[in-house]
């Protein structure tokens, strides 16, 4: 109940309490949002003529997607898919394998301060760039093909997995860890018997989730030349073979749905 309305006596009707309690913050936020929207929409350069042009063009464009053509470039689609799958699996394995030591180092309750800072810096750096930007550089350095994609996805996996692992270790129950330490366990034994069992179920789930993400990402890395099904898609767009592009998109959606369903199932079983 808002006491203000009752006290002032203007209205005895009950009104919902607002989500943001402090009225000053609330009005400030509304005002700020209003000013921002006005500014943003004001500086938005919209070419209405081009947009109006776009509607019939869009209809033609979308109709050229149908019917999807699976046959003509089936060979290329299969090659792209295989590349994507190799990239996804190898990069997830390598990424997770590298993320474990870094994640251990980035947990505040495990690592000494200097190690902690270095590992956190590595994680922040690998996470701040979008995969595509990393991929552009990897393609420049390592040449076209799935190897550049593999490296990109590995780096991205390190950032993702390492950060979540570190946070999970920081949230673990200290009592169990203390109990193991009290038995006189060495550091590695302590890690193996106190820390690992606590974080393992969630980490397996996250590993499968990362596999899922990596496959999804591998579908776009091809646009900058890093191999995979994205390369097939990009080629199809460049050749104006939109029916093939539609086929590729449908395949990507189908596989992502399948992977998401299985990963959800496995994660539910593990946890």
């Amino acid at each position: 109940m808002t006491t203000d309305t009752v006290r002032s006596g203007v209205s005895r009707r009950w009104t919902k309490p607002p989500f943001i309690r402090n009225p000053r913050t609330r009005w400030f936020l509304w005002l700020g949002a209003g000013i921002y929207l006005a500014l943003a929409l004001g500086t938005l350069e919209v070419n209405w003529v081009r947009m109006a042009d776009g509607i019939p063009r869009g209809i033609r464009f979308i109709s050229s997607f149908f019917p999807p053509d699976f046959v003509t470039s089936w060979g290329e689609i299969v090659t792209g898919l295989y590349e994507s799958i190799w990239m996804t699996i190898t990069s997830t394995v390598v990424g997770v394998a590298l993320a474990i030591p870094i994640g251990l180092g980035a947990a505040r309750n495990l690592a000494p301060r200097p190690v902690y800072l270095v590992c956190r810096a590595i994680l922040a750096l690998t996470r701040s760039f979008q995969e595509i930007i990393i991929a552009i550089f990897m393609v420049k350095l390592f040449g076209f093909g799935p190897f550049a994609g593999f490296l990109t996805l590995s780096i991205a996996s390190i950032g993702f997995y390492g950060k979540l692992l570190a946070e999970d270790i920081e949230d673990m129950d200290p009592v169990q860890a203390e109990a193991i330490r009290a038995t006189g366990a060495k550091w590695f034994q302590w890690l193996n018997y106190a820390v690992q069992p606590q974080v393992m179920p969630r980490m397996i789930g996250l590993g499968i989730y990362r596999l899922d993400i990596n496959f999804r990402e591998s579908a776009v890395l091809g646009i900058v030349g890093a191999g995979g099904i994205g390369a097939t898609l990009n080629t199809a767009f460049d050749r104006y073979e939109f029916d093939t592009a539609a086929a590729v998109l449908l395949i990507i959606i189908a596989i992502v749905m399948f992977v998401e369903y299985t990963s959800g199932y496995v994660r539910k079983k593990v946890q």
Partner: protein
Amino acid sequence: MAVSQLNGVKVWQRRDRAKQLKIWFGYFIAVTIFMVCWKYMSDRTIWIFVWDAPTQAIDIATRMVPPKWGYINSLWGVIWDTINIATLGTVIAIFLAVPTAFCAARNTTPSVRFVRPIALFIIVSSRSINSLIWALILVAILGPGVVAGIIAIGLRSIGFCAKLLYEAIEEIEPTQVEAITATGAGRLQVLAYGIVPQILPAFAGISVFRWDINIRESTILGYVGAGGIGLHLSASIDNLVWTQVSIILMVIIVTVIVSEWVSAKVRHSII
């Protein structure tokens, strides 16, 4: 827990033999899959380019310093555009995600059999197509520019926001809804007074979280012509102006870190 006899001494082991062998076998399969994938990938890699990479990296790194500091003055416009793409895209996504989420949640959907599958399909297809692919399609339809980027980000984010939101709706406390219903409230009133207050914190958290992700994503949309700082990045890389590239990368890092900080602050104050 298993105890084995070793020379008449009882030795504690974590698992008995059969279980341990099963785990080893699992590892064996996993390593085999990894090796096979690695082999196929390495067949498709031109290793001369890979061995060449360190020299290339040093070469590019030396060309990136000193950064061309003056260039930053021509970047303010595109930074503003990048932020707008992310913010307006998120706003569009939220407006579309809310009804989708209410249709997808088991306890609020008008019809479990007909409406819910449609809503779930919208969510999955929006999530499985990367914003870069959306941008690729939209640039072909609407022409290059910020608008294509905004819509691409919006379409990509609907699935993410709607998925998290409908999970939050399904987890609400049913007793509160029951209490509101018992007062004789209509369907919409139950929604407004029983359900919405319960999911508002989750809703605010999800929007800010997605905004943070979108800032990161909008930095690359320019690569396919959808506006933002990515346009300058790809132009600078294509023209081999590495001193500009380093400035752009720094700007991206700063933007991402600031947005992450803002989003973390907001989420902490909500939860």
